[in-house]
């Protein structure tokens, strides 16, 4: 943390994400759908692992309730 090209950019992001996750949860959108991780360009394997894990998480959660609601509204 703080080790950001723009000095404190990642700290600011982290704060917003912490807030947003809880707001999403309260609004009925699973907070697992939002994820924020820092992976440097030298950590290819971490990145791949993270992406695969996130894809798995999303797959397990199923389509977003927003998508379903949107489809209903459009119908």
């Amino acid at each position: 943390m703080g080790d950001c090209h723009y000095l404190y950019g990642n700290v600011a992001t982290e704060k917003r994400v912490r807030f947003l996750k809880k707001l999403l949860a309260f609004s009925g959108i699973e907070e697992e759908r939002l994820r924020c991780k820092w992976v440097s360009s030298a950590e290819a394997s971490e990145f791949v692992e993270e992406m695969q894990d996130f894809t798995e998480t999303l797959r397990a959660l199923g389509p977003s309730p927003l998508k379903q609601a949107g489809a209903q509204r459009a119908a």
Partner: protein
Amino acid sequence: MTQNVKKKVKELLESGKIKGFLGLCQKNGHIGPHLFCDPDDLESMVLGDEERPGDSRYPLNKLLIHIARSYPDETFGVLVRGCDERGLKTLYTWNQLNPDKVIPVGVACPQELADACECLRPYPEEFVEGERAEERSSASVTKISGLDVKDRFTSWMKEFARCIKCYGCRDICPMCFCNECSLEAEELIHTGELPPEIPIFHLVRAVHMAGRCIDCGLCNEVCPADIPLRTLYKKVADIIDEEFNYRPGYSEGKSPLNILGSAAEE
């Protein structure tokens, strides 16, 4: 019930400490905001209770911004309840009012109002009228939090679906002082839709309330569709408190989302 406020305002006006006092008065059968400038003209002053306590509250601190923008060198008095005072404090941190140019005159809310508001602090730091009522925690938030995530979603979707996009929640909000509003930004929210893009419209506003909403509840009161906005923003305030130990109007200083780095928080 207004004797002490009137006395205090009379003193302030006569001593020349304030140019005017922004309070409430009864005129033409309506209770509404009024700027009292003459110490002999305080007869019509009321505290905003028509049928029930506090049922005629107005965003006086927001109106004060309008006046102060044109008269930055004058000092004004303003009627404050607990929430209004929190509003003032927060507006100071946002540079929208100058604390040296505002003299608040406080009233404490009766228990009935504190209960209805689920208010964490239904009184200002100092008050000349009323008695300190007991604080209330937010049962409405607890109720929604207790729902299953799917039910929470369905319930909010139902609420948001009633929105008629009147922008009343924003227009009445004492913490909404922007000239240009994200709720009207085409890039963020599709235009020409009613109800406005669900749930983006209301969640964008909720995000903007983070570190800012002082829980006055006026948004909820002006909503023609009775969307429980206050509950949503109460939760927003709870989250910021849980995560960063900051509650606008209660805590000192700026919102953690407006402070660089993490040193200043926690």
